[in-house]
């Protein structure tokens, strides 16, 4: 067998810099299909959890528009409740047996960047349908 010619043993080491910057593919253009349905169309007021009335005022009230809006996933979605009070800003009333609070229906509120008040009774945000805008 023909022998090979001896060469000096050479070991090469190439070091790589670990890339710690992970380019996360953020869904900037993903939107929720947000259906404004809380209350079924009955007039009322909408409050945040801390009691702030987002529809305060005699001329202001909320009612479900029934429209499915495209709400950016980057928008704020606020936990709160809807009270079917006709929009009179009252959270309850006196009855013959005393003061009684109106029913508070838990909702998630989307204000469309502070321009409106839309509410859904589907509190499971993970179940909301999404789409690309």
């Amino acid at each position, binding site marked *: 067998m023909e022998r090979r010619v*001896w060469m000096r043993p050479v*070991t090469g080491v190439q*070091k790589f810099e670990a890339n710690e910057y992970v380019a996360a593919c953020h869904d900037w253009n993903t939107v929720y299909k947000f259906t404004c349905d809380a209350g079924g169309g009955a007039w009322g007021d909408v409050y945040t959890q801390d009691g702030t009335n987002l529809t305060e005022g005699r001329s202001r009230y909320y009612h479900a528009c029934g429209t499915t809006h495209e709400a950016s996933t980057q928008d704020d979605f606020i936990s709160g409740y809807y009270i079917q009070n006709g929009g009179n800003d009252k959270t309850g009333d006196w009855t013959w047996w005393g003061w009684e609070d109106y029913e508070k229906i838990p909702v998630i509120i989307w204000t469309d960047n502070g321009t409106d008040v839309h509410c859904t009774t589907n509190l499971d945000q993970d179940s909301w349908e999404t789409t690309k805008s």
Partner: protein
Amino acid sequence: MERDKQSSQPLSDSELQRHPLNHESEPGKRRFKANPDFVLREIAGEAVLIPVGEAGIFENSLISLNDTCSFLWKLFQTPRTAEDVISQAKEEYEDPEGEMEQGIYSFIEDYVKYGLLKEE
């Protein structure tokens, strides 16, 4: 302590270690084995060592071997002395420059130093 040829005093451990007849300390008698945390693979026609366990200083590194390095690495997959490897290398390679033995000793020394070879 001064000694003479007639001395019957036993040698200390350090003296025994340095004794010319003590072959255990000679590199030719010591056995070495390739570190199992590195495996040899051929990638795009090139022999490379891939760290598969504790990589130490070779973290995030690619270790490429030339033909003779690759040959030696394969031999050291089983524990061998330098003499074994030199003997095998002489069967495989011609050594016109007379550099083989020194090259193999240097290979062993460097690989042990960087943890690629371990002494058995």
